[in-house]
């Protein structure tokens, strides 16, 4: 097996690790910042994967644009979370939301 093929395989494996690891962090991170970091890692993994699969430059630019858009929206939501809840710890935010949501009154 040539060195090129090995490098190609390693790149794909690294991209899959990044995509799956990033996605796991995005869904289960302990705070909003870590979750955004997970999304960025996941999208970076996709970018590496696309490059390894020989995608064209327009596709790579589109992937970078998508990553930038998610990063921008994520960070703006992070700021609003900090302003509204006074913190970005997701379990604490979920607890506050549970308290905020009124229980169903009995008719």
């Amino acid at each position, binding site marked *: 097996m040539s060195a090129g093929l090995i490098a190609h395989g390693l790149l794909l494996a690294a*991209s899959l690790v990044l995509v799956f690891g990033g996605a796991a962090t*995005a869904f289960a991170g302990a705070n909003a910042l870590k979750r955004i970091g997970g999304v960025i890692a996941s*999208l970076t993994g*996709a970018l590496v994967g696309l490059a390894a699969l020989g995608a064209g430059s327009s596709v790579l630019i589109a992937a970078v644009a998508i990553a930038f*858009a998610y990063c921008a929206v*994520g960070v703006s939501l992070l700021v609003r979370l900090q302003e509204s809840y006074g913190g970005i710890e997701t379990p604490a935010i979920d607890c506050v939301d549970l308290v905020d*949501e009124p229980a169903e009154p009995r008719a």
Partner: protein
Amino acid sequence: MMAALEFLRLQAPIVTLALLFGGAALALVIPHGRVSWTIGIVSALAALIASTQLSWAFIVSGDAMAAYGFLALDGAGAFAAPLVAVLAFLALLAEAPTLADRPERAQPYAIALHLAGAGAWIGALLARDLIGVVVCASAGWLAIAGLTALPAQRGAINGALRMTMAGGAGAAFMLLGAGMIGYATGSGDVSGATNALIGAPMTATLGFVFILAPLMLMAGAAPLHAWTGPAYGRSDAVLGLSIASVGAVAVIARLSAVAATAPAVAEGVSIALVCVGVASVLIGSVQAVGAVNVRRLVAYASAAQVGCILLAVALESPAGLAAALVQLVAFGAGAFALLAGMLASKDSTLAALDGMGRRAPIAGVAITIGALSFMGAPLTLGFLGRWRLIEAGVGAGWWWATGAAVITSLAAVFYGGRLIERLYFRRVTETSVFDADPWRFARVPVLAAAVLVIACGLSPGWLLDLAARAAALALGIGA
């Protein structure tokens, strides 16, 4: 003049997108909420007319409108584009009374995000390249997430964060999936899987699954629907969320139809759709039965309905895809009727429905008909979709698909019946605070339209014919 109109008719797909994105840009730069709303309504109505024209010309008249640079038409996309446009127009119409509840600065943003979200989802339905589908779906998802975050309640921000995180991780999978399909087929076109010899079928199948799974998440299919509870339950922009759900399901139908025409990947894609479809029916039905917040109930019930649509798509036959398209219309109209009806109340708990049938009769009728359609009651569009699924399932030897349809209907009888009982058989309580804004009358055509669409179940011939033609075109059979 006639020449200009003819030119616009021939360019209907581009005109549809230009109207929605142009309207969004215009609404954004005008700092007055009501003026932005008027611009938004005009743009959405014009886009609705243009998309209906393209759908009619492609599906019924058989005009050769297959390619427009970065856009390409197929049966499923042409069928669903006007549906998304209708929902966007009605959602904007229903936005009128809630506009005043938003901060003045946020009002133009709400209008612009509605239009941009609908435009992006229609773009995903009409995009020629897989990467175009991914970009448009991401843009549509981010627009609707932004809309979700606009309300003053802080819980909505948490819902929007979940949407953004889920969508971001999903976008990574979709990008990788598009790259894999391009690598395996040697073509970046959506139709590439059909035309090209697939050199690496496993890679192509995995690529399709990587693209379809995030779309299922965006459609709110269980068990990928962790975002739906916070987003539906705490945001005012629930009608925008229904646009995203319908758009995502329609894109799934489009891509699955493409996969169905490539034998190397068809089976793998079908298995993935069946697994999520069955899980979605079971989990969504159980959660909807236990829900105490009507908006959450609609989110969970939608998961069950989406599960049925996925099962119909998984059949990968003309009858199955036609059943999926009919169910898509029923799902969009039913969810819209339920959510728009609930906007008549300031509260979204079940207790808020008490006596609504008498205090807000049109909203009561909309909720009732939406619930009946979700149940699959005869003479509603929901019945038609469910019946078509059973017919297609039995025809393909998938008897168990009948069971999934029956489970969905039985669960819907329970939770839908509970809604109807509260509407008409309970007294008004302290929590039943109804909207007194004079702009609430802007919702009347919204509710009437939802009721009318569901009432298509009374005379369904044209819809069934349209769905059958669209399915045949999507599968490359020809109407």
